[in-house]
């Protein structure tokens, strides 16, 4: 069965490593914080200016001066720190953040990503996404494998205006985990429970590389 959004977040949480600083984008990526593996310490950075971001506040304690990059009210954990936008992007551009997880409208087989604009239809702006994808060494895209019309979001080339080029390393969808190879192509690493290689092939418009047996994800 294909994963739901929480399932995608759970699988991505398995990529977290002890002592990492992590930036989570809006949407599915935000859910990753709910599934940190036991026994490791990670700190979440939100690019509007906090390290050590905690969960949403208990009702009645929310503070207008304490929000995340999605403008949601949050809390800060012991050891947290606030900083200005210039310092925040020094952390990002300077590669002091070990992992960035973000959503996408399209990803191409050479690691290009599009997630900020649909010409003539939607222009919200890129926010911090262009800085994040251009700077981070380790970028995971969290998204559904196909869009609402059922069209593949994993393409040979992105059709929408790009957010960044040759930057995405891994994609986790409701159907599969794939690495993007330096030489191009989505290498299938894992299948969602009960999803066949054939189903994943059919949902992938870009080059899908299948080598040997592809295991199912193990998600508790």
């Amino acid at each position, binding site marked *: 069965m294909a994963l739901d959004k929480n399932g995608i977040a759970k699988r991505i949480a398995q990529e977290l490593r002890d002592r990492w600083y992590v930036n989570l984008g809006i949407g599915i990526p935000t859910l990753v914080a709910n599934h940190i593996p036991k026994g490791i310490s990670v700190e979440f950075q939100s690019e509007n200016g906090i390290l050590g971001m905690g969960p*949403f506040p208990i009702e009645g304690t929310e503070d207008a001066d304490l929000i995340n990059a999605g403008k949601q009210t949050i809390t800060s954990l012991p050891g947290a720190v606030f900083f200005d936008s210039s310092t925040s992007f020094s952390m990002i551009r300077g590669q002091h953040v070990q992992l960035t997880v973000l959503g996408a409208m399209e990803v191409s087989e050479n690691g290009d990503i599009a997630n900020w604009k649909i010409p003539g239809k939607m222009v919200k702006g890129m926010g911090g996404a262009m800085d994040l994808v251009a700077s981070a060494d380790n970028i995971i895209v969290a998204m559904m494998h196909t869009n609402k019309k059922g069209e593949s979001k994993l393409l040979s080339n992105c059709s929408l205006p790009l957010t960044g080029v040759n930057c995405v390393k891994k994609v986790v969808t409701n159907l599969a985990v794939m690495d993007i190879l330096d030489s191009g192509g989505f290498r299938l690493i894992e299948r969602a429970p009960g999803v066949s290689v054939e189903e994943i092939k059919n949902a992938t418009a870009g080059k899908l590389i299948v080598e040997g047996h592809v295991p199912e994800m193990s998600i508790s």
Partner: protein
Amino acid sequence: MINKEVKNAVEACKDIKSGMTIMLGGFGLCGIPENCIQTLVNKEINNLTCISNNAGVDDFGLGLLLQKRQIKKMVSSYVGENDEFERQMLSGELEVDLIPQGSLAERCRAGGAGIPAFFTPAGYGTEVGQGKEVRKFNGKPHILETALTADYAIVKAWKGDKAGNLIYKGTARNFNPPMAMAGKITIAEVEELVEPGELNPNEIHTPGIFVQHIFQGEKYEKRIEQRTVIKN
């Protein structure tokens, strides 16, 4: 001590005129200079170029200036929460320059720091990089971004003293410090204005040298855009 105190937003903004370029601190509705925005609305000046990470919402923040068509051009990174903004942009009434958030912050900081331009990887290979000089450093392509300055920078802080020293609270700091540096004239509105000596010099975020006018604001609404809570 050089005393920067002015009475209120009206006095601080008295020389702001139509056609000027104004930076406004804040991220979403967090840390925005509410008093000065209302004063600019009341002044009925127009043709403004506003540099601000966001454009407020329809009925608050910079949305108030948009509603009255006082803004000619917006320089921002994300404008997704404002229907009137989208309408004016799609109809061509409003010029919009969208800039990656980190580049926007650094362009302001550079403007204040006397650095005319810098290279960044953000935006390379995208619309943002079109027409900009590209250079490779350590094998990686970067684009040249130029500094931003403004006739006025208007920032909001939590506490300030009459010398213009500022302390921000929580994530309301955001764009306020780099913009405070980049205004030819910088106005700071604060929730609490104190005498020099009352703030601990070790804890000041923006040194008063960057601030020309300071006043204690009133009636802060501090609206929350996305109230996300855990039910007790």
